[in-house]
């Protein structure tokens, strides 16, 4: 079965609004959680990540929330802008520094002016 799942294939938000992207996972062993951003015909790039010993991390307009008991993590983007329009991939991994990540299928975020 799919270990990391993004249930929403797409999300549309008005400029200035909050974009909330969700990810659910199955494996209790996961202790690293990340969000990658991908433009069409470009490579994924890391946006923000968090370890399992924290339940929230902020970086500018981005905030990751981790709910370990619910096996769920989310990315909140405040003051969404048209240039935020992209595919957002959640990813999870375990074991120190292995880099072996399991990715979700991605959510297409569209921010309309």
């Amino acid at each position, binding site marked *: 079965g799919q270990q*990391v799942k993004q249930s929403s294939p797409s999300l549309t938000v008005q400029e200035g609004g909050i974009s909330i992207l969700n990810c659910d996972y199955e494996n209790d062993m996961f202790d*690293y959680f*990340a969000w*990658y951003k991908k433009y069409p*015909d*470009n*490579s*994924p*790039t*890391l946006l923000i*990540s968090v370890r399992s010993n924290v339940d929230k991390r902020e970086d500018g307009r981005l905030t990751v929330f981790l709910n370990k008991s619910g096996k769920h993590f989310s990315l909140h983007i405040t003051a969404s802008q048209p240039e935020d329009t992209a595919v957002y*991939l959640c*990813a999870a*991994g375990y074991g*120190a*520094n*292995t*880099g*072996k*990540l*399991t*990715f*979700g*299928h*991605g959510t297409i975020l569209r921010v309309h002016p």
Partner: protein
Amino acid sequence: EAAVTQSPRNKVAVTGGKVTLSCNQTNNHNNMYWYRQDTGHGLRLIHYSYGAGSTEKGDIPDGYKASRPSQENFSLILELATPSQTSVYFCASGDRCSGNTLYFGEGSRLIVV
């Protein structure tokens, strides 16, 4: 300048033919990975390596081989290409010291006819 470069960027191969996808990184990372991205599947790990001379099977290794002749280079080899291997392939490198962060190449689009 790009730190992870892939070649070729685009390739059309015939069924049963041999295909080699090459990846070079100048990040001096120990770890390198090959993923494929397909609609409806997200990114899936094929093979990975923790250093020159070593390769490991990822989640979907069947039909693929890998080679890590040096710190900088990691190749993905399709000995007998099949149409089901039509996909976009991404190489990535990671730094053991910075945990699970992956730095991706631009992708190689392979079509097997």
